[in-house]
């Protein structure tokens, strides 16, 4: 049972790592003008919900399997994901809004966020791996 949980978590974490990397690449593409804001945001918005679900599943799984430490570790990130998704203003086109992404350093903060998540998922990855 334990093994199944961690194998699943490991796979899920892999997916999340890839997703983070994808976010970073896409955002830096935007930064470098290789793609425009519109396509960048529509690409990224597509993956916001999968990411949210993926991460929530792991978190819940850890709760169910009573791995308290890992659960608590995951909780803040999962909460942030959900909070961010809920707080999108009604007029915006998603977490990433093409009309605002170039304003007020949003691009930079999105980038930072993706980096932090990547680090976090890597950490989790090794944690799951060596359990």
């Amino acid at each position, binding site marked *: 049972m334990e093994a199944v949980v961690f194998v699943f978590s490991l796979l899920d974490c892999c997916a999340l790592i890839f997703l983070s990397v994808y976010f970073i690449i896409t955002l830096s593409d935007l*930064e*470098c003008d290789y793609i425009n*804001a*519109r396509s960048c945001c529509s690409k990224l918005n597509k993956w916001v919900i999968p990411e949210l679900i993926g991460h929530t599943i792991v978190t819940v799984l850890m709760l169910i399997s009573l791995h308290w430490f890992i659960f608590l570790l995951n909780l803040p990130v999962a909460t942030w994901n959900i909070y961010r998704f809920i707080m999108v203003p009604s*007029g915006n086109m998603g977490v990433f809004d*093409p009309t605002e992404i*170039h304003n*007020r350093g949003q*691009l*930079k903060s999105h980038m930072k966020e993706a980096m932090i998540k990547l680090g976090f998922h890597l950490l989790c990855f090794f944690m799951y791996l060596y359990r």
Partner: protein
Amino acid sequence: MSAPAGSPHPAASARIPPKFGGAAASGAAALAGPGPAPHQQNGPAHSQMQVPSGYGLHHPNYIAPSGHFSQGPGKMTSLPLESQHDDYYSGLYAVPTQNVVTPSTANQSGVQQMYGRGPPAPHVVGSTPGSFQGAASSASHLYTSASQPYSSFVNHYNSPALYSANSSVASQGFPSTCGHYAMSTVSNAVYPNVSYPSLPADDPYGQIFTSQNAPTVRPVKDNSFPGQNTVISHPSPLPPPPSQQHQQQQSLSGYSTLSWSAPGLPPTQDSLVRNHTGSLAPTNNNPTNTVADSLSCAVMQNVQPRKSSPVVSTVLSGASSTRMPPAAKHPGEPVTPVTQPSELLQHKGMQYGEYVNNQASSAPTPLSSTSDDEEEEEEDEEAGVDSSSTTSSASPMPNSYDALEGGSYPDVHSSSASSPAPDPAPDPDPVPAPAPVPAPAAPQPSKMAKPFGYGYPILQPGYQNATAPLNSGVHPSSQGYSGYQQYPQQYPGVNQLSSGLGGLSLQSSPQPESLRPINLTQERNVLPMTPVWAPVPNLNLELKKLNCSPDSFRCTLTNIPQTQALLNKAKLPLGLLLHPFRDLTQLPVITSNTIVRCRSCRTYINPFVSFIDQRRWKCNLCYRVNDVPEEFMYNPLTRSYGEPHKRPEVQNSTVEFIASSDYMLRPPQPAVYLFVLDVSHNAVEAGYLTILCQSLLENLDKLPGDSRTRIGFMTFDSTIHFYNLQEGLSQPQMLIVSDIDDVFLPTPDSLLVNLYESKELIKDLLNALPNMFTNTRETHSALGPALQAAFKLMSPTGGRVSVFQTQLPSLGAGLLQSREDPNQRSSTKVVQHLGPATDFYKKLALDCSGQQTAVDLFLLSSQYSDLASLACMSKYSAGCIYYYPSFHHTHNPSQAEKLQKDLKRYLTRKIGFEAVMRIRCTKGLSMHTFHGNFFVRSTDLLSLANINPDAGFAVQLSIEESLTDTSLVCFQTALLYTSSKGERRIRVHTLCLPVVSSLADVYAGVDVQAAICLLANMAVDRSVSSSLSDARDALVNAVVDSLSAYGSTVSNLQHSALIAPGSLKLFPLYVLALLKQKAFRTGTSTRLDDRVYAMCQIKSQPLVHLMKMIHPNLYRIDRLTDEGAIHVNDRVVPQPPLQKLSAEKLTREGAFLMDCGSVFYIWIGKGCDNNFIEDVLGYPNFVSIPQKMTHLPELDTLSSERARSFITWLRDGRPQSPILHVVKDESPAKTEFFQHLIEDRTEAAFSYYEFLLHVQQQICK
């Protein structure tokens, strides 16, 4: 920095080399300019020049603005033209003064002339011992001190000692910079000498003259010209009020002494000082407004007249030393007394030499302390230093370019002497005379060129050119006339002796005022009597003259702080305010095969680049050294070769290029207009259709466009109606689509039709339309589906969609619910629903923007229509928004009239299609937030489906890297668009600003109006993204922070008082005005739509209009006199003083005019003089004035004439013709008038004084 938009985030991302634009092309074919000048004066209507045949020469790598969102990387390929490098050094002849004064048709002949006349100078020089001597000595001195200017300048910046001197000066109310000025003048003085021998004088004359179409000029007349020029070239700047003038005069004179003594120059200076003061004295004695005029000039120069004035000055300086012989020979000719001047000149010439000596010997002093810095600098300067050392190397045209350098005096002589000289005879012969020509031209450029590429030396040229202000002071404005006769005589003296002085007094004269600490709580009248002008960046005159007009391009800080830390310390917002597509009366249009741009950052060549030698130029934004393409060497204006620095691109900071096919992704689109009209019951009831159709019928022929222009109509209620106007039909066909869930186009080909082919059908339709729906009972509005259909219709071409909507959309996609709670209108707490309710309109707008379609919204509603959501369709597609609350064609005639006038402007104004705008700035600065109606497609590329002349933009900047190694920063806006005639054009504006390292300098350069407008934009963002109260707090904090930051810098003043620098004295007042503005006010009943509309306007209006919206102008008009009046087109326009916006200024006996930008109020007091009422309003007494009066009758009385001419003058040059309301003291409409009196207390808001106390309290906390 607690500016509304929040903490100073570093910019979003690194700047990326831009890529919209072709490759640096290799086409070298000189532009064959036939007789008629290729540069025509371009008014709003573009006159086209010959099109270059070189299409296709270029690299096809560009990203044209069409809606392709997938751009590939690496757009910047370019084909450098490997041309041989000539060995000689042309020096940095970057910004020649004399060229293109006004690139109008007239110019060319003028230029030719001037060139013909150029050569005479050398002869003159040779034959005139006096001047020659002066020149020689000056040159030799120059030689010794050539390297000093830099260091001395550095000194200013670095040595603490100087600062202390400065600060002491500052505390006396003078700008802290004066010490610096003095210093640099000392060293600078060297420069002028170089220039004189080779006579920069001629050219400007010829030019100026010809630009005024008087080609018979003879060089002989030069001395008299100043007068002439001044008169003509300065149509009519507003004279500043007398009081100010005096002040400034004083400060000027104060300067001369203070500044010179402050730095502690060696004794040798004494004579110099005396000379200066002496020469200055006459200036002061001159009829009152000389100085003031020059000031006003300085302020206004950027408006077109300015160009000529500095040129004049250089001319004069040149003339003074070298040209007098001819003048003496023909003493009779000149209009103004010349005989005297000539003698004077000579005399001065001698003095001049002496002066030079002084300068040279004194210069070294400051140097010694700063050798380190000097070295550092030399590294930076590669170009400048190198060039001076190599000047003597053999060159094909030694005569010309050596002179440039300023380092090689022997050459100067030889060159000037050797140059072929057909003597003063005016030579209109168009034969290009490359070799001789540069000689006269060169010296100046060299002086000025230095500064550009790198840091410190920059200021110097200013001093040398400083003479200009004095001259310019002479010309301008009506009042200067009496004075100008004397001036020509004084010029020589003034120019030579106090060239530095003149410069400094003028340059710094705004400063004492802008830095003078003002105790706001004590100062009762902070508002000046005249309109507030934009501060002039503290640059040298040459740059000032070339700089972009503040009307098009303004920065909140005209002195850019060196580091982000300094900016944070100043607590002021840093940003740009743009009005890029403004209607210009004068615009150089350039047709050439090669548009010269920097190969790495794609910056367009501009007046602030430096020419390292004749073949290379250094980009002023990224500092890359680029090659000058062969074609650029030829100057079509002068028809001469080898003067890249004289090309109009390098002579004007606002130019327009005709772009080649490199700049297109597809053939330029035709003008396409689609009207989408609401015809539901509500709309028919309001009756806007009649007005619209009438306006359209009247203006159908004036719609901008060419023979390809297309037009279409759609109407909608709960269904969508299309109109088939295909040529050949006997009458318009109406096609109804009732499937609003899946809209389709019934006959896609015949809905948008050629305006000219189907004109009759269109007219039929327009005549029929108002009556077609009179009996409709349909109350629903399917706006969303109609917009989708419009998008489908427009997407193949792009163009403009004008949507007329009268209610909340209630059917189909994009339907909206009413979100406003009327009970919350005057709530002081939360104002909700400032943001859009759905992303439908935003998505639609982005789709439209991608297809080069802009959606303009006319909202004519009587109830809540959720403008916050609807506005999105215009905001992101670069459209514009018009809002007419409670519109009704009969019940509300003033709104109807406003609609009519707005429509007239809207339909006929210029329009640019498929536009993109890119803003670039010097390395180290970055842009991070944009305001306006557009879509930011990539970091610095704004996608504008349409651009109209009334659109303004704002950009926030941050300083990413320290700017210590540069002393100038530049900003360049390039707007690429398709004109309505199907031409691809690029309008480029370049603004140049100095970098400062001290906090005091930052405060001295604050442009308070720009700062307020930027803050307003930031506050709008904040209120939408956060909350209104946050935004209001942020506005108050902006005042509190900046004033407390300033308070802590001036420690010697008592802290209890609320101290502001002169430049910021209006800041609290304007912020208070903002807080009482419809957009941000609380506590007063404000409908949500009104508020949102005010916010939209703040975001999209250009600064001039926005300022009137924020802080209206109040004038008393019942006692207009001709005192201080100005003359416009044979009309006398009285200039009443500005009144502060307080009821205390209103008297029952008076009548007051309030100019709120889009609306005028005339308030008539109860006890107003019956004579005034009768003469101006046409009614016998107060009681008989009707409640709703919107026009002043044309009465044949003096006061009526004055009032009308004043109002007409205010209306002129304003896009929307404002509606006039006559408000009687007792009428209910007076509340509207009184709510604009922002200095007064209202139930919900502070009075000005209370606000100050509040701010003070916050500071002390």
